[in-house]
């Protein structure tokens, strides 16, 4: 039974494993971003995060406790001086692991692990578009259906129209009449496409096939046309 056996062994003895993790930690503290295999990256995270937490309070005792694991004075210094300051008040979750793919040779899954605070770019989740569609009542559902055939040009236009409307409205909040005019414009642009899309949907429904699942098949284009 795999009870109370968490953590990866990495095919190493305990001493070898500790040395590996110490070495990986030192490398991560020095470079802020390293590329390694996915299992090593995943093993490194629960190893180094408690050390970073400890580094927030600079005491001799803490330094010695961290040194037990890191076994490198340079790494401990860098951790307590530089990293701890940049990390600041972050309540855990100091590292980010991004999978890269498989390396040639042995096909091992590779990953990039980095310190979040040194590489803090707001990730483009791509969900902004999705959340925007959720706001509209019927529009969202129709758009979701359309977004699957990526080859079709129809979803582009409503998207930009929807983006422009709030922006334009925000620019002229006091001019209510202008706002109404602006809001009126996109529906006309959409209405030209609506019959097309409705027709496409009808075809899909009539066929009873799952057009969404088949994605951008060449058949879809035929159907749309």
């Amino acid at each position, binding site marked *: 039974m795999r009870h109370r056996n968490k953590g990866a062994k990495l095919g190493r003895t305990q001493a070898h494993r500790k040395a590996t993790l110490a070495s990986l930690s030192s490398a991560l503290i020095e470079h802020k971003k390293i590329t390694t295999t996915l299992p090593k990256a995943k093993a490194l995270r629960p190893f180094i995060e408690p050390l970073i937490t400890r580094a927030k309070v600079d005491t001799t005792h803490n330094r010695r406790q961290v040194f037990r694991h890191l076994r490198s004075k340079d790494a401990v210094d860098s951790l307590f001086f530089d990293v701890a300051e940049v990390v600041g008040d972050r309540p855990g979750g100091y590292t980010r692991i991004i999978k890269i793919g498989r390396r040639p040779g042995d096909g091992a899954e590779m990953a990039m692990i980095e310190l979040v605070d040194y590489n803090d770019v707001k990730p483009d989740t791509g969900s902004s578009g999705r959340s925007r569609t959720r706001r509209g009542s019927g529009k969202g559902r129709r758009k979701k259906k359309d977004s699957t055939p*990526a080859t079709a040009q129809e979803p582009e236009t409503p998207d930009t129209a929807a983006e422009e409307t709030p922006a334009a409205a925000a620019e002229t909040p006091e001019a209510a009449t202008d706002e109404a005019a602006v809001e009126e414009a996109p529906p006309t642009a959409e209405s030209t496409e609506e019959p097309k899309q409705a027709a496409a949907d009808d075809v899909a429904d009539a066929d009873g096939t799952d057009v969404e699942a088949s994605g951008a098949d060449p058949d879809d284009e035929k159907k749309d046309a």
Partner: protein
Amino acid sequence: MANPKRRHSKARTRQRRSKYYNSLKNPEVMECNNCGSPKVYHRACPSCGFYRGRKVVEHTELV
């Protein structure tokens, strides 16, 4: 040494393999949001090194 008692027919082999090989699936692939080339979900793009709108791997260290 243990030896087979009966001949193992082609049908038995093929039935077993049909289950197995039909269960194998290619990884789900999407178009990269940055460069448009095909990439596996939840992985950095192999051609441009982008993941979620930011370059995460340099070209030289790409695998």
